């Protein structure tokens, strides 16, 4: 039976996924992190020697690297008190009927199986450290698409795995990339063969359940020549009085003429530090699109990048961030133009309210070989009240005379003109505010699959409740 543990969970009426199920792991490395624990994780997973070596080397890098010198305050993050690895079941399942009842209940409440039936090509569900459910509909599996959890991929596709793993994000990149490399577990592995186009989205769902849990998802996507894929991930966690950590590493390789869209709807509860490293490389005429919604977490630091390494490659970022009291969203994008005639676009929308902070931090760089490339950046922020704040910190680095770069940003409160206009039509202040916010985020929501757009609109309207005094 699941029951509420009154001691540490917090009732938050504004966060509907804050429930918590009392489930015992079948294996846990306990609190804190040592070299011994890294060895234990690798042994528990029965990994080849090279992966253990990779983990140990990354662990030493993690110990050596300093905390980030910019951005939000991370001093509250208690890394010694985290649970770095917790396995909930001994098996992974391909049918919801086989998933242990208490885990299934969680995903039922989150609506994951229903969504799969209705409109997804494949679904994965990760609970704490391990993926517990993984399935792809037959018609898609037949096309030769590989969609599995990353641990299984290491065992079943060792060559493909070794060829791509860790190529875009090195452990030396930053402290949390090193931590992930040392203790990674779970995440999705997707390979789409040449010319195969998957129109229906594939989804992974990440759930943190216990208190002080670290989740170190490792996702690796390879979209081969001329192929296309649409990947969606969602994240939730219970509300606790003490903190959890999600430090993912995501690597996306987009081959010639291929297309990848990677959508994240991050809705962690406000006790989760979300410190992510997401990077994509796009070669000739490939397209990489990040769609990134940051609605939850306590602190987010996430700057997905696209390395535009081939002629005519295209990279885009479309993001929204909403931060309310106690939340600091520090996010943005990096577009690195390394080849001729590449293009990039960043559109960032953010809303800060009831004392929240939303920052945009990004880089657009044009290298020596980026002749004829173009970049466009647009950052719009609404600050809803006088306790909230927003910083916009873009870097535009140009090493090439034959490029064009445009950058624009606006920060303001809700337009009073628009508000009065709506209110003069008999609409209440609260409803009018909501309408204006919905209009503001529309460029984002209209890019989402219908069901997600509906869900996101609902979440935002939920977030906005009570924002007008």
């Amino acid at each position, binding site marked *: 039976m699941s029951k509420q543990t009154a001691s540490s969970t917090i009732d938050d009426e504004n966060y509907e996924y804050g429930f918590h199920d009392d489930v015992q792991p079948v294996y846990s490395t306990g609190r804190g992190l040592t070299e011994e624990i890294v060895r234990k994780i690798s042994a528990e997973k029965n990994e080849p020697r090279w992966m253990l070596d990779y983990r140990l080397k990354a662990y030493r890098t993690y110990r050596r690297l300093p905390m980030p010198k910019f951005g939000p305050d991370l001093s509250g993050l208690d890394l010694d008190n985290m649970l770095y690895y917790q396995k909930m079941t001994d098996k992974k399942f391909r049918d919801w009927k086989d998933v242990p009842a208490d885990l299934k209940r969680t995903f039922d409440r989150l609506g994951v199986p229903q969504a799969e039936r209705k409109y997804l090509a494949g679904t994965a569900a990760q609970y704490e450290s391990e993926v517990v459910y993984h399935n792809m509909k037959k018609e898609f599996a037949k096309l030769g698409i590989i969609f599995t959890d990353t641990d299984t991929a290491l065992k079943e596709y060792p060559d493909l795995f070794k060829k791509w793993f860790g190529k875009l994000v090195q452990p030396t990149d930053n402290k949390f990339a090193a931590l992930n490399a040392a203790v990674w577990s779970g995440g999705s592995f997707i390979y789409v063969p040449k010319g195969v186009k998957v129109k229906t989205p594939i989804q992974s769902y990440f759930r943190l359940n216990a208190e002080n849990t670290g989740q170190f998802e490792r996702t690796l996507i390879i979209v081969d020549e001329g192929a296309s894929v649409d990947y969606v991930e969602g994240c939730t966690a219970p509300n606790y009085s003490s903190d959890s950590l999600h430090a993912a590493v995501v690597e996306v390789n987009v081959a010639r003429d291929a297309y990848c869209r990677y959508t994240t709807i991050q809705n962690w509860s406000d006790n989760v530090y979300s410190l992510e490293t997401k990077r994509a490389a796009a070669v000739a005429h490939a397209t990489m699109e990040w769609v990134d919604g940051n609605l939850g977490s306590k602190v987010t630091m996430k700057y997905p990048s696209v390395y535009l390494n081939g002629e005519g490659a295209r990279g885009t970022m479309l993001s929204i961030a909403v931060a309310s009291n106690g939340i600091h969203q520090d996010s943005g994008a990096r577009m690195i133009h390394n080849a001729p005639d590449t293009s990039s676009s960043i559109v960032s929308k953010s809303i800060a309210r009831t004392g929240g902070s939303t920052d945009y931090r990004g880089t657009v760089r044009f290298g020596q070989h980026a002749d004829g490339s173009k970049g466009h950046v647009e950052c719009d922020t609404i600050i809803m009240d*006088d306790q909230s704040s927003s910083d*916009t910190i*873009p870097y*535009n*680095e*140009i090493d090439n*005379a034959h490029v064009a770069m445009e*950058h624009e*940003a606006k920060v303001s*409160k809700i337009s009073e003109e628009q508000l009065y206009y709506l209110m003069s039509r008999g609409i209440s202040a609260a409803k009018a505010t909501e309408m204006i916010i919905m209009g503001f985020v529309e460029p984002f929501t209209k890019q989402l699959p219908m069901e997600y757009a509906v869900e996101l609109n609902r979440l935002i309207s939920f977030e906005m409740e009570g924002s007008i005094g």
Partner: protein
Amino acid sequence: MMTDEKQRRVQLAAASRQNSEPDTLRQRRLRGLELMGQLPRPRMQRFRFQDWPLIADRPLNWCQSSATNLASTRLDEAVVRVTQLGRTTVSLSLPQPLRDQGVILTDIFTAARDHADLFDKYFMSAIRADENKLTAYHQAYLNAGLFLYVPKNVVVEQPIMAELIQDNTQDEPLVSHILVVADQGSRVKFIQHLTSIGDHTNPANMMVELIARDGSEIDFSSLDELGPTTHTYFKRRADIGRDAHVEWAVGVMNAGDTVGDMDAELLGTGGYANSKVIAVTTGKQRVGINNRVTNRGKHTTGLINQRGVILEQSELIFNGIGQIIHGAHGAQADQQNRVLIMSPQARGDANPILLIDENDVQAGHAASVGPVDPQQIYYLMSRGIPRPQAQRMVIRGFLGAVLAAIPSQDVRDKMIDVLERKLTDGLQYQ
């Protein structure tokens, strides 16, 4: 080390006495020296200049400079002219009507002696000695500069024009301080023209403080044209009171490596600052400029407009920083950072940064980096204008917003001359 430090103190105090400085200034110098030993050098986002020789390890001295060989100054009715060569004031005269109204224009050391109340109150009040090693160095080794005071409600119609010439005929740094105090309701235009003679390698540490008291207006223009052997660190800061108005119009046309800060602090309600900077870089020159406007008071307006042209193998970094402090209701901040890159080896950044802690605001920024618009060039060429000239015309149009804001025709023409020369040289190979 210890004796070195002690020796420096003794030397500095002696040089200060030799210059008949009041005790307060001498104490400030010694304090600056002390801070130099404790503080780090300033840093700038995306720009490294840690190894530049920005501090001359030379004692402060007042021996004869080469000031005598300077051409005689022009008498001009339209402007009030003051000339300094190195640390020597060559000419300075303030028309009698302005004197009668209480306007003070002196070299900085005379101000320290004869106008101690004003000097002590405002000198290093906007820029502080304890900000970094170079501001501490400034306070310790100050060797040139001017003081201008405009009393309450006095309107000075003629621009005050300062020719500041760095003396690179010898090994000597230029550590210069311009202090402008515009008292309540007064108005003044100040223009400085920085040049250098000689070819010795020297640092220039150039500071400007503008104190715009309530309801005053200061137009400050600067044409920076220091030579290729000068490493420049400049810091220009305005403290802007209630309903006061400050216009910066700065052309950074130095031939040598330059790093600088522009700062406008909007302290009082209704204050206004418009910070316009153009920069043209050539050769292997490296230039980094922070342009910051901080809205602290309610209903303040802070504007930044930066335009840069990067030629040959040079590098130019523009950081525009618009900050709105919590409580600055109704503040407006807007910035434009635009850069033209004219050669494959050139590199540049236009980083428009907004730091907003208040919701009742309008803040925006825009940045662009790119080559000259080919359509504009073709249009002009189709009218029979040769390409190099067409290119120069487009660039001049691009820089026009700042050029047009310079109040003196004379300086404007000079700036255009420098610009033409730089563009002609820098675009030659194309």
